[in-house]
């Protein structure tokens, strides 16, 4: 059905339309248009829910490069449908929000164009079955994210943030591509479905673990895992709707999607479990820990996003244990971690989207997001406060909000995992729940900060540009829809589970029998003695404690000096790479021709001379003294002396004289070697060259022997001697190689063949006339060139460098 692929195409088509027809569309309507497009797509996608939840899979193929198997194959299953709904759903809300958020003076065409581009790319990522096409869309999300971050590109910070995100995500993309190509090599297919089918087969390959690592690098960079997360806080330079959409709800989830999608392929490898879980957990901790120290609300949310992405990532890692262990009734329990992952993914999108929009409202209405300038806004902006409160409580994992449910499941999963006795978990498994708990303490702390420092306490009107007031209704619609969902999901989680999450689970664990078995029923209450509940309670207590003593322990953030931070490493790394490469490049790209010649000759000596020694090419046959006449020997001496004489000549004319002697002697050799045409040509050419030398040397100064250092002289001497030796030795070897008869015996019949008795001339004029024709062309170009070089002088006498 062509409609399926249209889902991906629609945003692109509209992006193209906007970019081409923007002159004819009023700015007012573009936002509405984009919102409508996303909404329609969302609605269309919801119509697929029944079919997909019944286990149906919808595919459609449009051929692109069939000969390489690179085709646009859309593949709509539970996982992709879930992500597609998320993308279009949040997309509509963000579209709506941005209509009120963005000023009409902005270049809105660009903005919405990029946004649609992103939406299309993101849909492409989650719907593609072909890994190379997936890669394409993957990079397109990086590109559109780049453009959106740099939307206010006159700001330096925007450009820097855009560059950072682009470099890191594209680098991840490239490594992912390498991983994909390895998968292709192992499985012989580009289709994800087929790769999953061959998962057992490819596991044997030596490329399996490298491919795994490379694919994970792609996922980690995109999903802002440690240590690649550093682009995400800087991406907050983008307009807030973008942050809400790309950098919390959708694009950063592409890495999660990738891990989920490839869990069936890689899950049976221990490295996968450890990398995904370990990196995820550490990111969870690191993000929450760092969020606390932020003073910019948006930065705090960014770190919180990093942390939450780590949480989801680690859950997927834990879920993969089920595949590692293989299917059995005991192992199904571990799949619940994966369920928690995708559940939390949805929940995170709702509350974090709402929170970002909340911050956007503050920014928009007050002109600041700086916590040091905020406070006591509860009374001025009660509606906004509600958003913040509900969002934060959900994020902190408190009831009655959806965050509580998934957080409980997370704790449960960590506890399950530490009980395992494989994968060395019996030794260090306890760290998993511990880290999870610590991170949730910090999470609670920054949630308190967001709500407390912004909405409680004293209002600091003197620090604000504008008088605080509630946001316009338009900006509140989207966040309110989201917090309604936050609450709604808490109360009706199984609706979501049944229709959206279960089918997605089936995609993650295709080798497990049925979605029903995998999907738990989500309960808010696991009993008073459930350990996960106590973990939450203890986290709240510890969080409140830490929050109240914030000032006394905040000093630990200063332990790690800035220049050792990842950001500093990245920035300095770029600066260093530029300055070091500049220094290195300048070292050998001196612009000095002599150096360049040294490189050429040394390369020749290393490769040719080196192979001569190494490859056993040497060959020698004794000289037959009778073959050499005395006069020939003298002639050789003459050539030798005149050429060496050039080296010692002190004036340019002496050089010309000696060169002439050399040329005439060579011509004489041609006569000795029975080559009359050659001798004639050499003679004339030599004389004309001499005339040319004299004509041109008039314009050149007398030779000053530039003072070369002793070692350079020695170096030149060694290189020269080695060059001579190499050419001679190789020449001797070539000379003694007599396995073939020359083709030129054919030309001895030149009179019969071509009617010419002068064989050389007949070769030049007939057998190889083409060479001669081109040689004439060369001469012609040179003549014309000499003319133009002399006649076309630079304006202003050629002294206008730079």
């Amino acid at each position: 059905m062509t409609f399926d692929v249209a889902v991906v195409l629609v945003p692109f088509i509209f992006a193209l339309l906007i970019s081409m027809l923007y002159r004819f569309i009023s700015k007012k309507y573009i936002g509405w248009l984009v919102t409508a497009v996303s909404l329609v797509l969302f609605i269309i996608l919801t119509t697929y829910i029944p079919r997909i939840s019944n286990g149906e899979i919808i595919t459609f193929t449009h051929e692109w490069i069939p000969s390489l198997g690179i085709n646009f194959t859309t593949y709509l299953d539970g996982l992709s449908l879930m992500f597609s709904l998320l993308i279009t759903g949040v997309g509509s809300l963000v579209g709506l929000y941005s209509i009120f958020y963005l000023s009409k003076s902005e270049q809105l065409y660009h903005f919405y164009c990029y946004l649609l581009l992103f939406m299309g790319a993101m849909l492409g990522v989650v719907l593609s079955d072909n890994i190379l096409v997936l890669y394409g869309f993957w990079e397109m999300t990086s590109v559109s994210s780049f453009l959106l971050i740099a939307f206010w590109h006159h700001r330096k910070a925007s450009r820097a943030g855009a560059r950072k995100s682009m470099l890191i995500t594209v680098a991840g993309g490239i490594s992912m591509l390498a991983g994909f190509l390895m998968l292709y090599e192992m499985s012989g297919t580009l289709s994800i479905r087929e790769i999953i089918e061959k998962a057992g087969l490819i596991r044997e390959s030596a490329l399996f673990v490298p491919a795994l690592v490379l694919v994970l690098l792609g996922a980690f960079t995109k999903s802002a895992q440690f240590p690649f997360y550093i682009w995400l806080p800087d991406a907050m330079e983008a307009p807030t709707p973008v942050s809400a959409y790309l950098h919390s709800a959708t694009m950063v989830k592409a890495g999660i999607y990738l891990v989920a999608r490839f869990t069936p392929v890689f899950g049976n490898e221990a490295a996968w479990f450890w990398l995904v879980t370990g990196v995820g957990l550490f990111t969870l901790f690191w993000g929450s820990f760092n969020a606390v120290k932020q003073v910019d609300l948006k930065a705090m949310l960014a770190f919180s996003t990093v942390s939450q992405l780590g949480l989801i990532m680690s859950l997927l890692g834990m879920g993969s244990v089920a595949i590692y262990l293989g299917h059995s009734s005991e192992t199904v329990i571990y799949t619940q971690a994966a369920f928690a992952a995708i559940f939390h993914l949805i929940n995170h999108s709702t509350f974090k989207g709402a929170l970002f929009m909340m911050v956007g409202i503050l920014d928009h209405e007050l002109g600041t997001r700086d916590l040091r300038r905020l406070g006591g806004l509860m009374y001025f902006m009660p509606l906004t406060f509600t958003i913040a409160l509900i969002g934060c409580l959900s994020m902190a994992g408190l009831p009655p909000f959806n965050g509580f449910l998934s957080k409980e499941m997370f704790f449960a999963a960590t506890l399950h995992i530490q009980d395992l006795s494989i994968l060395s978990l019996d030794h260090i498994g306890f760290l998993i729940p511990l880290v999870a708990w610590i991170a949730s303490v910090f999470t609670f702390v920054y949630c308190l900060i967001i709500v407390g420092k912004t909405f409680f306490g004293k209002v600091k009107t003197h620090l604000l540009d504008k008088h605080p007031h509630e946001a316009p209704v338009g900006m509140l619609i989207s966040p309110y829809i989201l917090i309604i969902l936050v609450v709604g999901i808490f109360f009706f989680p199984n609706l979501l589970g049944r229709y959206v999450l279960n089918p997605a689970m089936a995609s993650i664990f295709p080798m497990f029998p049925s979605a029903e078995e995998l999907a738990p029923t989500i309960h808010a209450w696991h009993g008073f003695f459930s350990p996960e509940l106590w973990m939450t309670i203890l986290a709240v207590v510890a969080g409140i404690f830490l929050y109240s003593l914030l000032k006394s322990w905040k000093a630990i953030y200063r332990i790690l000096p800035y220049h050792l931070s990842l950001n500093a490493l990245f920035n300095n790394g770029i600066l260093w790479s530029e300055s070091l490469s500049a220094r290195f490049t300048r070292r050998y790209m001196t612009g000095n021709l002599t150096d360049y010649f040294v490189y050429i000759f040394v390369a020749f000596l290393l490769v040719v001379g080196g192979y001569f020694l190494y490859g056993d090419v040497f060959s020698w046959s004794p000289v037959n003294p009778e073959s050499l006449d005395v006069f020939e020997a003298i002639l050789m001496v003459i050539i030798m002396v005149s050429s060496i004489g050039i080296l010692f000549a002190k004036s340019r004319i002496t050089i010309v004289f000696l060169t002439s002697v050399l040329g005439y002697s060579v011509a004489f050799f041609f006569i000795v070697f029975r080559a009359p045409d050659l001798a004639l040509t050499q003679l004339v050419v030599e004389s004309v060259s001499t005339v040319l030398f004299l004509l041109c040397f008039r314009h050149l100064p007398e030779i000053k022997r530039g003072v070369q250092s002793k070692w350079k002289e020695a170096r030149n001497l060694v290189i020269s001697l080695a060059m001579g030796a190499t050419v001679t030795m190789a020449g001797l070897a070539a000379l003694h190689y007599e396995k073939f008869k020359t083709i030129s015996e054919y030309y001895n019949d030149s009179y019969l063949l071509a009617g010419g008795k002068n064989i050389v001339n007949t070769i030049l004029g007939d057998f190889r006339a083409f060479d001669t024709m081109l040689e004439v062309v060369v001469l012609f170009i040179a003549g014309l060139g000499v003319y133009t070089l002399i006649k076309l002088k630079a304006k202003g006498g050629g002294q206008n460098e730079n």
Partner: protein
Amino acid sequence: MMKTILLISLALFMIAIALHLVRVIKGPSMPDRAIALDTIGVNLISSMAIISLLLETTAFLEAILILGILAFIGTIAFSKYIERGVIIERKSDH
């Protein structure tokens, strides 16, 4: 025997060329070099003639004439260069 005589002559011409080469290298003045070079050309002409006899071929007789021509042109060029620093004048002053 005849061949030996020719070879001896050829060798003598070559030695003469070598001696002139010494003058080319030593100078001391540019005209010295020019004369030496001219003479080398002239001696090469002789050598070519002898080679023609030795190889019993008439193929190099053009080369003899051409070398004569070229040695002449070369010497003129050199002497003009030494004398005036220019080989070809735009417009001669007389």
